[in-house]
């Protein structure tokens, strides 16, 4: 039987995603061994992330200020908005360096079996941004799965009638590698999404 405080820590760690009882125990015993200063820094970082961050009032990205960096940057095109499921998806899009507009974080995807409907997502907030920011195009970058597609379709039904262009990112092949090494499903999907060469 573990001492009470160790047991508490193991239980808290087990509640984290991707951490089972064994990993939780290993982490707990590691924390037991480190300096008190290190433990305080870890605890401080955990508390800090809760106390010093909030959602951007416009796009719902994680931010330390009222509006996030993408919403306040001058050089970004405010008429172009990329819709993602989670704030962490913004980082993935940013890494491409291809997108220079603003974002909108839905907070998930429509999934009846998880009890998530349109009202549980920040869809009304997205619609409200269209007139106030003069949005001309919305790019749907939800996950390429059944729920992400359904969410995109739902948005398209709401937004198309407003005269705003709504597009979906394509699924494609990893670039730079050999075709030979692409997995069958990705390559198969790339065939379905093939395009004509421009004349």
């Amino acid at each position, binding site marked *: 039987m573990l001492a009470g405080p160790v047991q508490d820590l193991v239980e808290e760690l087990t509640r984290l995603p991707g951490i089972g009882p064994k990993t939780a125990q290993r982490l707990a015993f590691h924390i037991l061994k480190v300096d008190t200063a290190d433990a305080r820094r870890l605890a401080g970082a955990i508390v800090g992330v809760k106390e010093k961050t909030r959602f951007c009032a416009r796009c719902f990205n994680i931010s330390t200020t009222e509006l996030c960096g993408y919403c306040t940057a001058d050089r970004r095109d405010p008429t172009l908005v990329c819709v993602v499921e989670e704030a962490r998806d913004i980082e993935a899009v940013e890494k491409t360096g291809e997108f220079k507009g603003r974002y909108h974080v839905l907070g998930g995807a*429509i*999934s*009846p*079996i998880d*009890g998530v*409907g*349109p*009202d549980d997502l920040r869809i009304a907030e997205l619609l409200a941004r269209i007139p106030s920011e003069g949005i001309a195009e919305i790019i749907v970058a939800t996950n390429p*799965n*059944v*729920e992400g*597609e*359904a969410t995109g*379709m*739902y948005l398209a*039904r709401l937004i198309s009638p407003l005269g705003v262009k709504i597009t979906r990112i394509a699924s494609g092949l990893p670039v730079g590698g050999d075709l030979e090494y692409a*997995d*069958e*499903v990705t390559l*198969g*999907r790339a065939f379905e999404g093939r395009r004509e060469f421009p004349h």
Partner: protein
Amino acid sequence: MQLRSLRLTDFRNYADAAVEFRPGLNLVVGRNGQGKTNLLEAINVLSGLGSHRGAAGEAMVRQGAERAVLSGTGSAGGRDVRVDAEVKRTGGTRLLVNRVAVERMSASSSAGMLVAVAFSPDDLVIIKGGPEERRRLLDQGAARVRPLGATERQEFERVLRQRTGLLKAASTSHRALATLDVWDESFARAGAVVVRNRLAVLDRLRPEVLRRYRSVSGQAGEVSVEYKASWLEPGTASAASEEGLRAALFDALAKARSRDLERGVSTVGPQRDDVEVLLEGADARLFASQGEQRTLALSLRMAERDLVAANRGEDPILLLDDIFSELDEVRRGHLVEMVAASGQTIATATSGAGWPMAVSQTLTVEAGRVLARE
């Protein structure tokens, strides 16, 4: 295509066993309950299809162990191949082909993979059982010929679950209804793809089933296999385009909506469809004799073998689980012909007697141990 060696660790009643196979007919002999079917099941798992008896991972891991590990070597498509599988007690199978992880569902149609077709006395359920048995034959066939086939099927299953979840939620909250149109559209799109895949498999099975049935029965009987869907006009399925299927399914969902909402289930769609096996124009499930049904079941499996062989350009490994003793003299003869014309067969029996053809080797199985006997 050939399996050369198989190693089983903590799989069913095998603690640790290694088996070598030869080209031609490998006979696995042993009393009941010794592990013959388990051995064939292991080979089916390695070919990416999971258990041929539809068992879950939990059932396949040896009692008291956490995971089963299988490893096979052989050749496919003219190249050496090594396949490793790890089956976890908690569910889930990990497959490695030449030490590279592959998606289990699409593995069964991957080039350079060891592929098996299993025959068992339980195959009679394809004729006598419920529609799900016949749908499985087609869906498995679709996964065998195209890696995307398995993915497309999984996507439909997911949409079906979501739509059903929505119908259930809608009974308590009207708010949930807002997305039903979107799920109907997803359902029609994913469902049309699944049905298109099934129809393509049926088109390829049809001539083979007829040919095999005539040959095995020695009669000029008319055999056909037809897709049956409540949402399609009878007889129009095989001519329908994917676009046409999608439109028909979408219409049917609209018509079924109030009923679906009332019952909280999806009452139309590919999850309810069936395949009619017709003998002389009559439903074999209801009108064929026991012997005719057995011949039809055998012919369907043979046709599946033919489909895989044509798709690969190479014979799949045949796994015959205790089926020789089940058959009468004539049907045995045709089975022997198929085995003689195939590259490699692994057949189980309670006794080694009765095979009117050369046996490459006889293996004896006793309580999870395998011994080679010349």
